[in-house]
């Protein structure tokens, strides 16, 4: 349990952006794991994949309960506005050095976490599983029950949305 405790908590925290919710969900995951351990079949896949699927199902249930889709919708509207306001040339410029400097601070990490919480749940879970949980595309496809090509597409779109959102926040901060 101690092996997967940290992994599950991080997955829940990155998805919900709430330490309390992450803690409750992690407990719920292990309670469900405790009850359904007998149904795990080694032939169906790795235990990590099975556990991540279980966690993801609980996260989806939690998301539906907490009605976060409204936040996502409003964020999408904001992104569309932002797309119009920033020129293509500005976005083509590589902002990596500045971002690297900022990420050293906790404040920047908070911003990234906030941006991650605001992107669409489908894209968010794909990005988290790939970039934070280090799962390969095949495993993610099993967890999300979608084709591998869809997984790659969602990951790309999620990364792009994250970058756009942070770029917009950066611009707002410089204006203030």
């Amino acid at each position, binding site marked *: 349990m101690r092996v997967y*405790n940290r992994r599950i*908590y*991080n997955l829940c925290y*990155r998805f919900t952006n709430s330490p309390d919710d992450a803690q409750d969900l992690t407990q719920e995951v292990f309670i469900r794991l405790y009850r359904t351990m007998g149904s795990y079949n080694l032939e169906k896949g790795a235990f990590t994949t099975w556990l991540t699927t279980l966690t993801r199902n609980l996260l989806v249930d939690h998301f539906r309960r907490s009605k976060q889709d409204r936040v996502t919708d409003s964020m999408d509207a904001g992104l569309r506005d932002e797309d119009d306001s920033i020129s293509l040339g500005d976005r083509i410029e*590589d902002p990596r050095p500045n971002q690297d400097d900022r990420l050293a601070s906790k404040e920047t990490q908070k911003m990234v976490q906030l941006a*991650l919480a605001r992107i669409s749940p489908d894209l968010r879970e794909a990005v988290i599983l790939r*970039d*934070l949980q280090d799962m390969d595309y095949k495993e993610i496809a099993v967890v999300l029950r979608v084709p591998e090509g869809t997984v790659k597409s969602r990951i790309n779109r999620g*990364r792009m949305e994250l970058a*756009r959102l942070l770029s917009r926040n950066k611009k707002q901060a410089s204006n203030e």
Partner: protein
Amino acid sequence: MNKEAKNRMECSEFEALLAEALDDTLTAEKRQVFDAHGQSCEVCGPLYAEAWEGLLLIQKLAEVEPPKNLVHNILAATSGKDAVATKAEVEKLGWLERLGRSLRPQMAGLLHSRFAASFAMAFFSLSITLTLAGVKISDIKNVDFHPTALRKSAVLSFTQVEAKVTSYYENLRLVYQVQAKVRELKKNTAPAPGTGNENRQQNRKSVPQDGGRPKQYENYSQERDGSLMAETYTRHEGAQI
């Protein structure tokens, strides 16, 4: 626009290879074509830059330390929740059902009415027997069930029983010895053979008073020698005459 081929690669193909390009798993040839398309296409170039930026951002997120009490809470939840649920269920059940649940499935059949009646009868019989024997159930609480104490108790009980048996047989032996001495004394104090006529006369006198009932049987337990029995037989014949 996506259908338009640029540097031998279409935009859809570029997008499909975007993930592998960011993972740096493309072959050298494909990577060259991919980069060429990204530099020349106004749509795909920014896509790659944004995806690359997003990847760098999210990978910078440090791993979060879970709360220290999380493991404890999980253990409490997984080990205590079932206990609480079971307790609530058990409280709703009757005592017989609770007893049935506490028994193993193989033993649950013993709670059928016929077996239950037999057990009840056996229990009452045992309790009555124990009551008559003076055994109190409350005394069992004071018994020390430690192996050493049990062994001592068993040895003590055996010694007590052995002493009782020995004493009983010793007493019995003494009784036999006393009886033997009494017999011997009686034999020694019995009348000499010469005095038999006096007895005979006394017997003759007493016969009519008893209505002819033989008196010699009263002496059987005292003297069982053949001579006396022969005399008695002779006396009866005389009485009949």
